[in-house]
């Protein structure tokens, strides 16, 4: 039976910009269950990243209700949110966001350190081997290509055995070849390990390869049909 990963009801997020109130996410109802590979698509300013930040427990909500796994996070404090982020959510960012002073191995160990995991040696090595970087263990981010850095970031996100992965424009800084490699890693994780993946992206190629596409416009969900990707602006 599928487990609820994300359940949003009338979810709204507003910002104050000087005197003006900006509605970034507007009354969104959404449910994502385990095993899904969902892409959140839409033009710039449509609210993709804001929605992803709220799902990732990085940002608080303005109104409505948001359930992540079995936690209602609508009114949780930062100290409670960090416990949900740590170990249950894996993050992947557009610019890889690796710590430049740490090697590939240490970047993964860092996530395990904060999660207080005991498996700080063998597990990171196995994860790097899994993403095809067994030969890059002791390399610093500056010694790796963009595709390699993103694969280290994926390994780091997987280190704490999260319930789901959140990726914000994961192929935004990659060329076609590396984009395909990252897509293959995501598909493999989703199909072989039944890992839930939620991606915010502009990239129609990524959208087409995901199982479900959530199309946002002006903070609202306008379509959840995969075919809409082809006709999106």
């Amino acid at each position, binding site marked *: 039976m599928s487990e609820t990963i994300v359940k949003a009801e009338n979810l709204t997020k507003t910002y104050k910009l000087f005197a003006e109130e900006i509605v970034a996410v507007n009354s969104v109802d959404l449910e994502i269950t385990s095993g899904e590979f969902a892409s959140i698509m839409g033009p710039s300013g449509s609210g993709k990243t804001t929605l992803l*930040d709220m799902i*990732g427990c*990085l*940002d608080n909500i303005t109104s409505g209700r948001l359930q992540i796994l079995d936690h209602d996070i609508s009114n949780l404090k*930062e*100290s409670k949110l*960090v416990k949900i*982020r*740590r*170990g249950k959510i894996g*993050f992947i*960012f557009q*610019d890889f*966001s690796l*710590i*430049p*002073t*740490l090697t590939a191995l*240490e970047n993964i*160990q*860092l*996530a395990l*350190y*904060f*999660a207080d995991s005991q498996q*700080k040696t063998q597990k990171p090595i196995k994860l790097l081997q899994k993403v095809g970087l067994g030969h890059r263990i002791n390399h610093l981010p500056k010694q790796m290509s963009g595709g390699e850095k993103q694969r280290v970031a994926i390994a*780091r*996100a997987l280190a*704490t055995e999260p319930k789901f992965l959140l990726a914000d424009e994961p192929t935004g800084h990659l060329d076609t070849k590396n984009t395909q490699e990252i897509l293959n890693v995501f598909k493999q994780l989703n199909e072989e390990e039944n890992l839930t993946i939620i991606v915010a992206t502009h990239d129609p190629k990524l959208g087409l390869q995901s199982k479900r596409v959530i199309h946002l416009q002006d903070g609202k969900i306008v379509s959840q049909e995969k075919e809409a990707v082809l006709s999106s602006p």
Partner: protein
Amino acid sequence: MNILSIAYKNLKRKKIRTVLTVGGVAIAVAVLVSLVGFDRGYQRSLTSNIDRMGYQLLVTAKGCPYEAATMMLKGGGGLRYMEQDVYDKIQLDTRIDKITPQLVSTVFDPERQEGQGGFAMYMGITDSFLELKPWSKFKSGKWFSSDTAEEVIMGYEAAEVEQRLVGDKIFIPNINKILTVVGIFARTGTQDDGIIFLPLKTAQQIFSLPNKLTGVGIKLKDIAQIGQFEEDLYNEPGIQIISLAQVRGTILNLISSAKVMANSVAIIAIFIAVIGVINTILMSVFERTQEIGVIKAIGASRMDIFRLIWSETILVCAFGGILGSVLALLGSGVVEHILKKILPYAPSGQLVLISPSLLAGAFLGAIILGVISGFYPAWRASSMRPVEAIRRGE
């Protein structure tokens, strides 16, 4: 992997900035260690010098008591003289344990200091001198053959300077007197090392000061009687009595104003170091805003971030503490040389005393500096909301 190794790697990112900040802390620590070392060293040397005079009280002719005492400590001319009858009278006091008369005279010797000329200090003494200074041992030779012998015993440094050995003759210029060296004292670490001693009666005769003394050193049986003893001698005509404990206090007072100035410099140096550390770490926090957001996203709590930034600050200060202590140790010789030149009175012995406990204290102080100055940057970093930190850095 631990928080300190991550903090250390972060500091290595901007090497020049880190080195400059560590340097600022090191200078503050070095100044502080040198000042405290000077305070301890000076007091200890002064106390040792005074203790090693062997007596607690000094009776001299009337005049400025501290000038007289300083002259005794430092050596030099311009001394006042009193009659030997005073000594004969005082020595009958039963409260006295040991007493010794002295006659000090200085003679300009044009051959001294490589031909530039300098004063040689002579002191007429009696057998009782050694009773008050039992630590005075002979490096070579022996005591005078009689109390009127035309002989000298040289202090260790005086013999070194004049390159004299037992059996040599020394010539006293102006007086045109030749005396025989019969002994050389071992080093005592006091002003006695630079003095040429001769029998009191011989000194009175050759310096044409019959029945004259410059001072009488007194050690009482019971130190608690000093106050009463001083009071009893207060009305004796033509003399004054000086407690060497008072002399010590007065000399320490004289240098206390210089110490206040130096302490102010140290406080300013520490203040600048704290500002420098806060500035460096804050700059580093702002530069790493996005990174801090990402670390929070991958599971770091507020306390984790606080500990990380705090560790960076404490590391900077710890390195500064170690470097500053090394600088103070290496530079203590130079500081001592300068102090001996500028101070009105510098006792013999080590003026800047840097002990392991002082170094340990300095290191601990540097750590406390890090704890204090790291608090605000660590709080700023830990308070960042992850989403704002991540987006602000983009």
